[in-house]
């Protein structure tokens, strides 16, 4: 666990970086000049690529050496996708998938 000062520093970094990402378009393009096309292009294609990257990053500890190393994760991800396609409700999808995963790792694959 981090020290108290370390945790405060981490939270401060998160706060500052989050604010900067929100403020950047205003800092750069609030003078009336249109953003360069290449910026708009990257702003459009990068978000889905980054989200895909973060999903893979979240699943980086998957291990195919044992059933418990991949079944709970992949079953729960499939459940989130299915729930979301079915009900289009963010909360239901996130909580449904998370509760399923918790049940799986705490009982069947404990």
């Amino acid at each position, binding site marked *: 666990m981090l020290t108290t000062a370390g945790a405060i*520093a981490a939270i401060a970094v*998160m706060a500052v970086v989050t604010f900067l990402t929100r*403020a950047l378009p205003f800092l750069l393009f609030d003078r009336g000049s249109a953003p360069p096309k*290449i910026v708009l292009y990257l702003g459009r294609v990068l*978000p889905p690529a*980054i989200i895909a*990257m973060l999903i893979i990053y979240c699943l980086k500890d998957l291990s195919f050496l044992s059933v418990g190393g991949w079944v709970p994760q992949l079953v729960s991800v499939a459940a989130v996708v299915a729930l979301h396609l079915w009900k289009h409700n963010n909360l239901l*999808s996130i909580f449904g998938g998370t509760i399923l*995963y918790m049940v799986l790792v705490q009982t069947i694959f404990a």
Partner: protein
Amino acid sequence: MDRKALAAAFPVTVPVLMGYLAIGMAFGFMLQAIGYNFIWAFFMSLTIYAGSGQYLGVSLLASAAALGTVALMTLLINFRHLVYGLSMLEKFRGMGWRKFYMIFSLTDETYALLSSAQAPVGVNPKNFYFAIALLDQSYWIIGSVIGAVAGEILPISTEGIDFAMTALFVVIAVDQWKAYRKHLPALIGGAVTIVCLLILGQIFGQQQMLIVSLAVIVVLMLALRDRLEEKEGEAC
């Protein structure tokens, strides 16, 4: 505070009220599970104020990540905010000191409300936008504090609750998949990361792996610009 604006903004924010109380509670609960109580939840929600960013924050705190990793991961998860800001340039113009708060509080949900909501006749639009932003953050703070307190009281095993972050990204990905006509960016993002993870993950640390993946993704996107741009059109 303009009461009329607040009264007009409240009904508009009810969906966010439900959502933020629930997701905020899950955040507080997770934070408590890794040993940070409601005071930490309160200050994180007050100063960072980002749904997915704070979920990520729980993982970063739990793993005692280096500050460089914290900065990089926060930057990556917030990248989509760049696009939000671009479409709010006009709306926030002339809001004076409140513009600072409007930019700070531009979360996915507030962005969605501001994009669509219209101030009723007789209500100052700037006050109306400000009230929406302020109400949304108050729900988020309240939810996260309740969650942290509940986590302290309830004797539930929280093993596996960190999957909420994965689930959140999957939900965002499904929404993006439906909103975009071209799926190549998402597929490239996933494929490049898998390759980087398999090859570089062993040699370098995981932070370096993410920087390399991101660089490769940006280069590939620039290389494929002609192909992606004409067909993507306004589908986003």
